[in-house]
């Protein structure tokens, strides 16, 4: 086949063109977000979570009924236009109680995650950065504490400290931070010998600055994933404790106590179990898929 020469043209070297970056530069978190967005299930989880949080904030104001006031003439009503989720055995509106419960459950989850974060980052960060004997000692202590079965210890603490919101969060945090500290320590160990840390040291940065400016921000990915996955486990623990009679005391409405009350009446008034149970599942589901999606989006091996 003959190709005539005039089909070709000498373009020469276009230096400026070769140097141009065709794609806009992406920061790490933008990149993560783009990958996260491709995960349909995780995106669905995020939307669901947004809805749940929205309802937790505004839900209690959408109905004229109060979550704690009794109305004995209207007890055990089935869901209707008056009481959207029905009423319980004291005539309290289940719709108001459900969103009040959402506040409590999400608060417990987030509070437990934040406390784990603070203790875990300090403990794991110091152990990883100092290394040597300090690391050995701190992590051995964490290992021994880690051997203590989590739920048993929480139950024991609830029995001793008495029931209540703050005792529940304290009980969950006593061993909950260990996982976080292990992850932070691992991250710090792998980061502390990088050149930019050395550069920061050479420039005279002290330990706390290196930690706060370099080590912790660069470990943010795994920390965030761990936090996201701590929230559903704390929500589960609250429901579990309430279910075995160690939860929050009335008139506080938590999903666990509502499910526990509903179980006794399941045969005749199934909605009293149905609503809290479904919302516990939805919340745990949403946090789990968002956490999983975040983990996949942060994992460089998933990059195509």
């Amino acid at each position: 086949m003959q190709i005539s020469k005039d089909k070709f043209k000498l373009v020469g070297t276009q230096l400026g063109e070769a140097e141009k970056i065709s794609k806009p530069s992406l920061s790490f978190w933008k990149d993560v977000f783009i990958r996260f967005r491709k995960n349909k299930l995780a995106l669905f989880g995020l939307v669901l979570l947004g809805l749940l949080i929205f309802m937790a904030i505004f839900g209690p104001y959408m109905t004229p009924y109060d979550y704690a006031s009794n109305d004995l003439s209207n007890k055990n009503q089935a869901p209707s236009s008056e009481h959207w989720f029905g009423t319980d055995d004291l005539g309290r509106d289940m719709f108001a109680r459900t969103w009040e419960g959402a506040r409590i459950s999400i608060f417990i989850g987030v509070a437990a995650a934040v406390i784990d974060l603070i203790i875990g980052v300090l403990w794991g960060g110091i152990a990883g950065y100092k290394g040597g004997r300090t690391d050995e000692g701190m992590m051995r202590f964490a290992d021994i504490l880690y051997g203590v079965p989590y739920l048993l210890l929480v139950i024991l603490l609830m029995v001793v400290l008495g029931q209540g919101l703050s005792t529940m969060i304290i009980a969950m945090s006593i061993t909950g931070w260990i996982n976080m500290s292990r992850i932070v320590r691992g991250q710090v160990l792998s980061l502390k010998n990088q050149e930019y840390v050395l550069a920061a040291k050479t420039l005279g940065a002290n330990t706390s600055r290196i930690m706060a400016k370099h080590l912790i921000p660069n470990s943010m990915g795994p920390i965030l994933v761990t936090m996201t996955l701590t929230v559903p486990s704390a929500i589960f623990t609250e429901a579990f404790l309430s279910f075995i009679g160690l939860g929050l005391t009335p008139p506080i409405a938590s999903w666990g106590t509502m499910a526990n009350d509903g179980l006794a009446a399941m045969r005749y008034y199934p909605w009293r179990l149905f609503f809290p149970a479904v919302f516990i599942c939805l919340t745990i589901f949403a946090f789990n898929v968002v956490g999983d999606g975040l983990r996949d989006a942060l994992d460089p091996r998933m990059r195509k």
Partner: protein
Amino acid sequence: MAKYIGKRLLYMILSLWMIVTATFFFMRIAPGNPFASEKKLPPEIEANLNAHFGLDKPWYAQYWEYLVRIVNWDFGPSFKYKSQTVNDLINEGFPVSFLLGMEAIFIAVAVGVLLGIIAALKHNRWPDYTAMIVAVLGISVPSFIMASFLQYFLAIKMGIFPVARWESFMHSVLPAVALASTPMAFIARLTRSSMLEVLANDYIKTAKSKGLSRGVITVKHTIRNALLPVVTYMGPLTAGILTGSFVIERIFGIPGLGAHFVTSINNRDYTVIMGVTVFYSILLLVSILLVDIAYGIIDPRIKLAGGKKGE
């Protein structure tokens, strides 16, 4: 190996000692007197009771006695039910819980592994998506909610299974399924990801190019290697089944140790809470240790000697 087991044993004993010590001091600071009741006891009787249970001695003597008793497998009396000891409760309730737990473990492992294998073999096709959605649901639905839904729909509404009690095999199906649902989902996800990892290996390609059939490759080369990580999950699995039994036994009215434990919590029967907690901790820590040792034996790539796990 011996060094590794020795080291692990030492840690286990330290953890156990921490639990025993913590329970002992927790119970001392717990509110309320063990003999507190509506009727005020005459001081003489109270002194006698205290002497009978050794409560008149100083705390260190009590602590030491408690440690000695635990070592001798004596978990102490019940303050609420005078004729019953914690050991009686364990002997009576644990066999039931054990049976239920074993059934649940069997379901969790069998169904979980099967789902994981199917998902991995049909990667990114509908069986994979279906299996993984089932798994996410299994993880998101707490066992006690699963139990109440199963009980409501399958037993109360449809009448396929008995509602509660512990009499025949049929009575054990629903509680075992409810107990197994969450660990099953974890096992399915674990099996899937480990299968996918194994399938990407060169020796699978070699086996294919040798002309081996798909079935042989799957059974002989993939599953055998992919199941190793599942073994590591046996420790958390035991823990999950055990704590799950507290609520499941309560919902289905099963006279197991879990149900007794919850009753003692509600009665604030401190000595029973203390004793059963220690018993459960021993059970859990020993089974986790056994799993780790078994893992070291099954997987020759892991070098346990020297106490550090090889990469």
